[in-house]
């Protein structure tokens, strides 16, 4: 607010005085309006934390830490352990990241290092289209088209790995096309645009002189990417990946449709599961009392996790951007 006084200097001598004062008033009103709009962001974030926590305190207090992090989810008997949902969110997000990151970095490199700028624009457009398709449409497609198709593939993979120690634990016993893995695939598609565009921004800051230096030393394009582009943009790309992770963790409707809706912790990726946002979306309608408090509480945990991931990611992106500008 110190700028207010700055923008309102001592009235200069002479005839301009009334005019300046008049302006200063409107000026100040506009500035306060703009400041209020800016502060609204902080207010909303604080209110989210307060109001949701308030509505879920009874869950946190009655269940306690051990109750919250238990696998016992049985609303009819007032048991609200959220561990299976946390596990589902973690495992689907990790699958999504494993699939989406190589693809996103590949496309980002293609856009910045391989194709000429004229071609880059339509490619960006196509990748951005992935983000325009609504979450619920991905979910609809996932449940009606992708899942039935994947079911056959899951079954043949499972029969192929049966008996092999680790692989059997990961890829055995598929139940249906809806599973952790199906949700992971859909989430991967949904986070690809954001990871791609952020990585592209970071990679675009690599100084031309570094790249030309690598070429001058006789490097191939791939060697140039590994030697000049990658060391420079590593940090920023990690930030972009974390942001993608945050998105994947919070993605609700698509996951709710394809994850199979059964809270369980299992190493089988092709088994049906549940995730934190999905359980809120599916069960909030019929919930009341303690049940509702528990679901809002899961929302609070989700908010907490995504805020932590986002703070970290933004911090990394910001730092690497600053370094890139400084270099």
């Amino acid at each position, binding site marked *: 607010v110190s700028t207010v006084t700055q923008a309102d200097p001592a009235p200069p001598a002479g005839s301009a005085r009334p005019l300046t004062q008049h302006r200063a008033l409107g000026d100040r009103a506009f500035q306060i309006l703009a*400041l209020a709009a800016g502060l609204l962001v902080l207010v909303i974030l604080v209110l989210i934390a307060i109001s949701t926590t308030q509505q879920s305190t009874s869950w946190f207090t009655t269940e306690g830490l051990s109750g919250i992090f238990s696998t016992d989810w049985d609303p009819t008997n007032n048991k609200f352990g959220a561990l299976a949902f946390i596990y589902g969110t973690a495992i689907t997000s990790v699958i999504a990241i494993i699939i989406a990151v190589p693809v996103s970095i*590949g496309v980002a490199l293609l856009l910045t290092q391989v194709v000429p700028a004229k071609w880059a624009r339509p490619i960006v457009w196509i990748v951005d289209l992935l983000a325009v398709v609504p979450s619920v449409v991905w979910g609809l497609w996932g449940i009606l088209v992708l899942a039935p198709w994947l079911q056959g593939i899951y079954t043949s993979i499972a029969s192929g790995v049966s008996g092999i120690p680790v692989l059997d634990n990961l890829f055995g016993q598929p139940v249906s096309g809806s599973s952790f893995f199906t949700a992971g695939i859909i989430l991967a598609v949904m986070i690809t645009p954001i990871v791609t565009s952020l990585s592209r921004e970071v990679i675009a800051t690599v100084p031309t002189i570094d790249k030309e230096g690598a070429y001058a030393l006789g490097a191939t394009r*791939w060697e140039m990417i590994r030697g000049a582009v990658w060391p420079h943009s590593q940090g920023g790309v990690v930030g972009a990946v974390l942001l993608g992770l945050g998105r994947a963790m919070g993605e609700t409707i698509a996951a709710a449709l394809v994850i199979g809706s059964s809270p369980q912790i299992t190493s089988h990726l092709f088994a049906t599961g549940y995730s934190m946002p999905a359980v809120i979306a599916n069960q909030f309608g019929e919930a009341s009392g303690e049940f509702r408090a528990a679901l809002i509480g899961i929302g609070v945990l989700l908010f907490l996790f995504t805020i932590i991931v986002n703070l970290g990611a933004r911090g990394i992106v910001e730092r690497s951007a600053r370094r890139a500008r400084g270099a």
Partner: protein
Amino acid sequence: MSVATGQPAVDLREPAGWRRTKNRIATILMWTAFVCTLVPLGFVMFTVIQKGATAINWQFLTGNPIPINLAPPGAPGGFQAAVVGTLIITGFAALIAIPLGILGAVYINEYGGKGWLAKFIAFMSDVMTGVPSIVMGLFIFTIWVLHFGYSGLAGAFALGCLMLPIVIRSTFEMLRLVPDSLREGSYALGASKSRVTLTVVLPAALGGIVSGALLAVARAAGETAPLLFTVLTVESTNSNLFSGANTALPLQIFSNATSPYVGAEQRAWGAALTLIAIAFILMIGARLATSRFTTETQ
């Protein structure tokens, strides 16, 4: 860094053997990555258009009320309620979030400058874009719905909360591009800061701001999670935004998607095509706004 060490001093020939192969493989992998994004996009668009086109007709878009889940394909009634709901809820959300977002960006870029508060707000607004949409729904539920009941307005608040940081970010990026010489020229003519912002800076960035806002609206129009427990769902048209439960296209897709009936499935595809069409119209509008902006400045 192996590049710098293992290389003869001057070698202008094309690198031979394994190094060239590796380079080729890398290039092929990059193109493969692009194809990996094309396949799901093409696949989903093809399915939605193919299955949606058979469901959509004038009656589907304007009929009222929405047929129940187990009604056969082509049952009387239509999705007027959902189309109207989507339009008024998203429209009102845009009405709240776009002006506030632009004002917020004006504060960050024009007033806050290099101060810590502006930086902090910009940072937190980026963090806010990462808040899951379902959490926004829960937030509006606890702060509004519990006191005033379900309504389209509550849904508009939830969507507005999602749009706000996106509008701030895109507007801020555009304001940053406005050259300082424009501002200085106006100050030299004796204009006040608010006047410079409103009549010089914002108009100069208008194309980009409109484009960013439309993209935010397109994203919000497709959101389901924030509406689940704020507008609930109804079958017949409720054009009153401020009272009574409402519905929207994403909500109808969600409830029809999990229903085993053939008619419900077909209606879900029809609603999906309608929703994607709305999102695409907004996106094309955004592109047009951007291109208009870029030709103006050149």
